[in-house]
């Protein structure tokens, strides 16, 4: 078997709620699988099953060739988990947290300290290592969390919405880190609510909703299925918004909504239309402060994938 992990037909119920209703997930070694879905889709439950924290009611999960239900302890030696909420001890310093996890992973004391220092350094926390985690900012806590998952040099990493609550700059940094981990050969499962994030990081994307897989594809394939990208133009001079709207309308062949707040937006069917917008703006001499091609939001993705028959989101425990 060449899959780093594989789940088949996972079912998990909590009382009357069905969190997972037959979910299949699979990632080849050294790849990044993005699991995209709204709150309550079953993303966290799926991760918790793979990370040995929950037993499924049906289906099977195999991690690094080991059956999760049969050999949880061996599975735990091979995985790293970063939960949606901080999974470090807030009363301990950053360094103490990492050393503790190293000790619990059976590293000798010296090696645990050395590895903690290396990880703090790598995640830009060397100066903050002696401070309690409760004093960390959201971004620092996220990085410490990710560092904590790497203490055991896991070959498989489960990241549950790792960038939730981060500002854009920090998010970009974390993306870089995740990419470098994948480049080093770590298999990553990453859940997210943003197509943009899955697109930036994942080799393949599984879209789940209401505990079921509703799509599985490469990012390019998925974007093709979904379409609905939007071009956004903000002229430097708000009075030129009308001129910009004209350019966008000609380039995209779409009606352009009247500019709002000096911003012109229009949907694009073909990425080439974006180049036409860029050239058109230059020719028309419209200087811009913002010019972007935006991926569709989660709502639009689901609308496209389910033809609007969106399963009602269920509460995730």
């Amino acid at each position, binding site marked *: 078997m*060449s899959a780093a992990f594989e789940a088949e037909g996972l079912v998990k119920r909590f009382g009357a709620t069905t969190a997972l209703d037959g979910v299949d997930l699979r990632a*080849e*070694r*050294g*790849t990044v699988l993005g699991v995209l879905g709204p709150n309550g889709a079953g993303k966290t439950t799926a991760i918790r099953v793979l*990370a*040995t*924290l929950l037993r499924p009611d049906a289906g099977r999960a195999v991690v690094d060739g080991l059956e999760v239900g049969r050999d949880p*302890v*061996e599975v*735990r*030696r*091979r*995985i790293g*988990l970063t*939960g949606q*909420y*901080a*999974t*470090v*001890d*807030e*009363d*301990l310093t950053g360094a*103490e947290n990492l050393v*503790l*996890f190293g*000790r*619990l*992973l*059976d*590293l000798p004391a010296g090696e645990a300290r050395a590895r903690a220092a*290396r990880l703090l350094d790598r995640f830009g926390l060397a100066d903050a290592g002696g401070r*309690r985690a409760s004093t960390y900012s959201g971004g620092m806590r996220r990085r410490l969390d990710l560092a*904590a998952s790497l203490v*055991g*040099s*896991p*070959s498989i990493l489960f990241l549950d919405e790792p960038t939730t609550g981060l500002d854009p700059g920090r998010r970009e940094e974390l993306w870089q880190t995740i990419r470098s*981990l994948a480049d*080093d*050969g*770590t298999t990553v499962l990453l859940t997210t609510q943003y197509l943009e994030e899955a697109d930036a990081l994942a*080799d*393949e994307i599984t879209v789940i909703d209401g505990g079921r897989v509703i799509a599985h594809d490469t990012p390019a394939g998925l974007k093709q299925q979904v379409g609905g990208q939007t071009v956004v133009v903000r002229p430097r001079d708000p009075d030129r918004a009308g001129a910009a709207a004209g350019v966008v309308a000609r380039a995209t062949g779409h009606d352009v909504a009247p500019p709002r707040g000096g911003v012109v937006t229009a949907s694009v069917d073909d990425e080439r239309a974006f180049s036409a917008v860029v050239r058109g703006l230059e020719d028309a001499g419209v200087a811009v402060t913002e010019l972007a091609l935006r991926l569709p939001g989660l709502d639009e993705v689901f609308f496209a994938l389910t033809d609007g028959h969106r399963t009602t989101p269920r509460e995730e425990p």
Partner: protein
Amino acid sequence: MTTTATTTTTAPADHRVGPTPPRRWPLARHSLALARRNLTTTRRNPGELADAVILPVVFLVLFVYLFGGAVAGSTQEYLQYLFPGILVLTTVLTGQVATGLSIVQDMKKGVFDRFRSMPVPRASMLLGSVLADAVRYVIALAVLFGVGYALGFRVETGLLPALAACGLAIVLGFSLCWLTVLVAVLLRDEIMVSTVGFLLPFPLVFGTGMAAPVETMPGWLQAWAEVNPVSRAIEASQGLLLGGPVAGPVTATLLWSAAFLAVFGTAAVVAYRRVV
């Protein structure tokens, strides 16, 4: 994307070195590592020690000055009589109130998920918490002795018997605390656990000859005091601190403690593994 061989062999040195091989005595090593973590946490939140330290002293002062004159004719004589019982009360109360609560709080923290996703024996998470509380016992007893001596209490035997009395009380507190641990694991609710932990010591510690001679109590209470294991512990404590028969009550206390540990300790670990 499917080139398995290349991705797994090009791993750099620090990363992807594979899982660390398991070492021996995982339960003991992991319990100690987690106990150390609990101690650090306690050191940084010294307020958590307050109930364990203050409550026994409050009982001591309250009983001595409120009832001392009535029960024993003089507060000084009553202090001598009462102190060995308060010693046992201290460890029972400390174990009951603190341990269960810290476990419930832990189970609700995010870091708990990380522990559970690591190759750590489940029992060591409970054991680490319980072991860390040994420090609470020691601090609470030290404060109690300090206040007791300030009020005029004097050990009538010697240093070693007095230390033995403390050790015995700690053994009893340690074994009885597994009852609250069991409650904590089953209920997982801070308020319930602290209520149970606070109420449980009352029949156990007060249904004894700690505060008044058993002969003065109604028949049903005498019957309970007679079979109550904590009665033996208080008799042992009186013997060790003031002189008197020791061998019988000490043996009985140790046997009872072993039984509590075996029953409640096992039940707590089994329940815990089922829950998590």
